[in-house]
């Protein structure tokens, strides 16, 4: 791992208006101690297999060698596609008149000022080493700035694709969404990769919701194989802001996702839902942290996982209710299904409550498929194999039925069904 650090230290800092940000990222990254097994937040996730020294860091031209699909049918969206972190105009479908979206490299003076003031504003770079490294290696980024009271017609679909380069590649992905007062937006961030891609993506997404703003943020991780990911999503909600977020994570060798939601204005409401589905020897680690700093906010968090084969999942759900955050309602549910004796999940709710007039409930379960339900299906003539697929699918599908962008559910369902069935015949009743 120290070789990886040395390799990043040798990188030159690109020179443009973002240079001061990158410099700060570098100093925080260099001062940061890499986590070890003794670091509580990384107790179950070792980085030694992904922090290798031989990554290619300097991707400048987009590769055309892309073997991946990301189109979401029936989704009315502007699509921005990045290949190995580099924007591909050829693969993107962006309405020229869409003013709420720009890349950092094309930002005008006003947009630059916004980026400079908001980027990392709610991230403690000294504690978040990978966000610091992301900032140091900041190449292209996406700014979504929805003007006050605006309601863009289309969703924004941001796709980060890993190609199949000959050399393992390190990529950084950066998204800043600022939804001004009373505005609404829908953003789908989507990670896909060629099956043979060997890549480490380090992503940071910041979601800033001003007073009365509404944001739907869906994040889909479809990278497989050795397309690994360390990512952070940091949301800040103003007064009466509403965040509806969903995280779908398929497995690869290693994925780590940190989701932090700050309630900073009264009357805010957040939904943080998701599923993780590691199999074979894959590893998915999801850490969430909901910070209630002010009174009268609601947070609702539901995560479910199905862990198959000898895969491992880690879920850590922290709820932190500060002393002044009276009348908070915070709910957290994490249910896990193990479909093999070798599968493992480590789930931990973590509550820190300093206010006395709050409602807070949490629960975590780990179980195997319900034998009674399997029997019930079989008494109707359904085979054991199909019953297992249907029940696995149902366990996850429950969370997809209420998505506010149904096109995403329709996109994901066949992939979910296929994941649980080795024979397509077993999914024919689910699509």
């Amino acid at each position, binding site marked *: 791992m120290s070789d990886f650090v040395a390799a990043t230290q040798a990188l030159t800092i690109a020179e443009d208006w973002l240079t001061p940000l990158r410099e700060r990222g570098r100093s925080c990254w260099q001062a940061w101690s890499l986590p070890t097994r003794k670091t509580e937040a990384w107790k179950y996730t070792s980085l030694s297999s992904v922090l290798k020294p031989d990554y290619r860091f300097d991707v400048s031209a987009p590769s055309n060698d892309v073997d991946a699909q990301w189109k979401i049918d029936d989704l009315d969206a502007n699509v921005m596609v990045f290949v190995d972190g580099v924007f591909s105009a050829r693969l993107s479908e962006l309405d020229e008149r869409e003013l709420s979206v720009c890349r950092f490299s094309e930002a005008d003076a006003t947009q630059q000022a916004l980026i400079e003031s908001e980027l990392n504003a709610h991230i403690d770079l000294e504690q978040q080493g990978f966000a610091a490294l992301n900032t140091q290696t900041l190449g292209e980024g996406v700014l979504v700035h929805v003007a006050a009271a605006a309601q863009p017609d289309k969703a924004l679909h941001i796709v980060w694709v890993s190609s199949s380069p000959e050399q393992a590649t390190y990529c950084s992905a950066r998204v800043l969404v600022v939804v001004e007062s009373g505005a609404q937006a829908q953003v789908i961030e989507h990670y896909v990769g060629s099956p043979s891609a060997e890549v480490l993506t380090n992503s940071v997404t910041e979601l800033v919701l001003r007073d009365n703003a509404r944001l739907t943020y869906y994040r889909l991780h479809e990278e497989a194989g050795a397309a690994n990911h360390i990512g952070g999503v940091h949301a800040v909600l103003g007064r009466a802001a509403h965040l509806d977020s969903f995280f779908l994570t398929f497995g690869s060798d290693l994925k780590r996702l940190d989701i932090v939601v700050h309630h900073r204005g009264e009357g805010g409401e957040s939904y943080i839902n998701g599923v993780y589905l590691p199999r074979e020897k894959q590893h998915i680690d999801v850490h969430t942290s909901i910070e209630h700093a002010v009174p009268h906010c609601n947070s609702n968090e539901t995560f479910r996982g199905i862990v198959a084969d000898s895969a491992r999942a880690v879920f850590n759900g922290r709820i932190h209710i500060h002393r002044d955050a009276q009348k908070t309602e915070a709910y957290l549910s994490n249910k896990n299904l193990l479909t093999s004796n070798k599968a493992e999940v480590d789930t931990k709710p973590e509550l820190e409550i300093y206010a006395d007039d709050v409602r807070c409930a949490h629960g975590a379960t780990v179980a195997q498929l319900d034998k009674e339900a399997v029997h019930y299906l*079989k*008494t109707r003539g*359904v*085979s054991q194999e199909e019953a297992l697929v249907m029940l696995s699918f149902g366990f*996850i599908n429950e969370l997809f039925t209420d998505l506010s962008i149904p096109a995403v559910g329709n996109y994901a369902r066949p992939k979910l069904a296929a994941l649980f069935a080795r024979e397509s015949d077993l999914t024919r009743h689910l699509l």
Partner: protein
Amino acid sequence: MLTIDSLNAEVEDKAILKGLSLEVKPGEVHAIMGPNGAGKSTLGHVLSGREGYEVTGGRVDFHGKDLLDLETEERAREGLFLAFQYPVEIPGVSNMEFLKAAVDAVREHRGLEALDAVNFMKKAREACKAVNLKQDFLKRGVNEGFSGGEKKRNEIMQMMLLEPSLAILDETDSGLDIDALQVVADGVNALRSPERSFIVVTHYQRLLNYIEPDYVHVLADGRIVKSGDKSLALELEEKGYAWLEDEVNG
């Protein structure tokens, strides 16, 4: 159709069925009554092949096949249907998906062509209407959030779509109000035919006012201790089960 010969079964090493014998011919409706703990529900579970119910003796012939040798799903495909006393909730799988999977499996086994989506939907809607459930129950998760009565009606709907040759109703009447009881009975009566048989397991005589049985059996301590026609049910209702136990033991 179904011949049960000296069936013995255990649950957790405790003998529940102790030499139960029963013969059901095509088109017949048999009611099985009995006190709590007599083994009424166990009979349904054993016949459906539920895990944890161990057969320790006897045999069961169903359409000339050794029923106990078949997997649960094979029994269903051969025409056995069990309406559960406590139907299971399966959130995330819609009733429609579940019914289509079941109907396809059963039809395939019987050498019938699979119903296309349109035809299946039509049949499902009809069955749904027949048991007086709103159409949106087809889209909801299997039994998810259904009331007790709705669950029982959903069982009858499944039975209508699967067209079994032998249906076992395990205390389907328990917890039902009169209206729901009527719906369940209508569903059963509509399916009565010279080829189709029913075993109606119940604690109360009430259901038999609506579904008229050809035979009534009393199950006590794991075996059938008395058989008769429908008048036996009325007698039981009047006198309770205690007199019978005395008669048998005496």
